[in-house]
């Protein structure tokens, strides 16, 4: 019960900022080879990164602070408070993930780069998790094997991506479809 605390560790928060920026940059560069829609998606991704960082900062600041009852707030302050609450309710990290992946898919195929982006995104999610829960890094020790297995699967997928079309990529696509169904099953309310 003591592995998670109520405090927000600053190193994890800094890692969140760095990894969010790295993910957006990694997916965006180089821009000259990307499709036409890359620029708007890049803007959306940058906004989502900023939103997720601001959301985290807001949670850090709001922690432990007593929130006054809304009825006692002046009108302007009340409106600002409601606007901030509505903004904070948006799932910025999820939007960032989707935007970064869309940005990446708008580029020509580059398997190693994509898997590297996946690791950056995973690092971002874990750092965000640590920053929100106040946990230390060693709580992830038990998940290292899973992460390593995932990285190995990523390397396999890179190999599949490097194969020419039709040379086994069909069954890999089928495996990906089954995995998508499993992921959707996990996402169902439990």
């Amino acid at each position: 019960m003591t592995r998670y605390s109520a405090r927000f560790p600053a190193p994890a928060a800094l890692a969140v900022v760095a990894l969010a920026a790295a993910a957006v940059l990694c997916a965006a560069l180089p821009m000259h080879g990307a499709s036409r829609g890359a620029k708007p998606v890049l803007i959306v991704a940058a906004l989502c990164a900023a939103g997720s960082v601001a959301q985290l900062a807001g949670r850090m600041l709001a922690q432990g602070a007593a929130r006054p009852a809304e009825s006692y707030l002046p009108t302007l302050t009340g409106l600002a408070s409601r606007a901030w609450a509505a903004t904070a309710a948006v799932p910025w990290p999820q939007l960032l993930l989707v935007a970064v992946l869309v940005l990446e898919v708008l580029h020509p195929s580059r398997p190693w780069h994509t898997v590297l982006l996946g690791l950056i995104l995973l690092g971002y999610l874990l750092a965000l998790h640590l920053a929100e829960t106040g946990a230390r890094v060693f709580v992830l020790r038990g998940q290292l094997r899973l992460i390593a297995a995932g990285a190995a699967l990523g390397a396999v997928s890179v190999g599949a991506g490097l194969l020419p079309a039709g040379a086994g990529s069909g069954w890999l696509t089928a495996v990906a479809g089954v995995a998508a169904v499993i992921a959707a099953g996990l996402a169902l309310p439990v």
Partner: protein
Amino acid sequence: MVTAGPPMQAPVTWRLSRHARRLVTLAIAGLLIAVLARRPEFAGLAAPALLLLLPAGSARPATVGVALAAGTGDRLTEGERATILVRVTGAAGFDAQVRLQAAAWIAAEPGVLGADGWFRLPFRSQRWGRRPVGTLELTLHDRWRLVQGRLRVDAPTAFCYPLPARLESRVVLSKLPTRLGEHPARVAGEGNEFSGVREFVPGDRQRRINWPATTRRGTLQLNTFAAERAQVVVILMDVSADVGEAGTSTADLAVRAAAGVGASYLAARDRVGLISFGARVRWISPAAGRRQADRIMNLVMTDSGDGERVDAVSRLPHAALPPGALIVVVSPLLSLRLVEALRELRERGFATIVIDVLCSEPAVGAGLVSGAALRLLGGRLMTGRYRRLEMAGLARRVWRMEQDAIRFSLRELGIPVVRWDGQSSLDEPLAPYTRRAMVNRA
């Protein structure tokens, strides 16, 4: 007082945690892109997230046990810190967090988990009365924080006594009943307070002979002492009108003042009674002791619905008003029925003192302008809004004059009226009447 119920089994609602939802997003988005764009490297990108989600399928309890207990004594006073103890059982392997969602007039503080496995949730009640403390929100997390279970349990009810007003000096009557007590009376008796010297008569106790006086006067002189008597005090608490801001309204001040006066006189071993003059008239006959203090507090706190309706009562109950009692009235003096009752009390010879708790005036409205400013505006610009404001200002002036007239008429009858703001000690407004004994006719 915080009451605690027996341990209960509460159902848990489980859902994916925020962290797990993000992993699911990454996995699904990566896999969908891999399928749609026929780019297998995106499946590799999704693979670690998918694998990290695997432990989310572990077994989770459908219900957990929640035990509640009171962490403090059986009495809670306004502003005093109390604690609720919460213990969660049947959730081994899960991190538990408990938060108190405080109800109105309850200020919750962050809870801590003790070494004994009990969560301690401190809170303060900011207003007297019987009220729910709030709702306990329990959150359970698995080891990897992939799923979280939530349940809500109603927190116990708090019985919060009013914070008694401070009163250290007491109003004492000049003529006290013949009941032994602690107040020095005018008559000689067996008390400790020296009252004078008189000539010795056979039968007097020799140990009380005043030898210096005997030497001076040439005859045996004896010390005399004042008798010590108990006083009968009846508190008339007027809660028929409740005006002002909640927490510092007239009813709040009346209750705090009544509690303070009662506690002070009971501490001096006097007999204290209470008449509650609200929607109904209820009373407790005067008595002394700690149990009487509890009875008074219970009468103040609870509205049991018994007693006579105030509009059906023509006179205050005689049973609650023993002869020679000091009547301490705590009232905003907004009820003309009560004012008539006070006049009648005075006619019956009771020594009465009124503590005025009216600390607010009727609001005229936002954007009130002064009468002088209205006059400057002149008749041409006198719109309907300003006319209404002027009329409201006039009504308030009439109201003030009425209130002054009520207080003046009571003073003319010989009933002192002192004003208490609810902040300072009651000693301050009562000082003119506590320095010397208050004359009564009994």
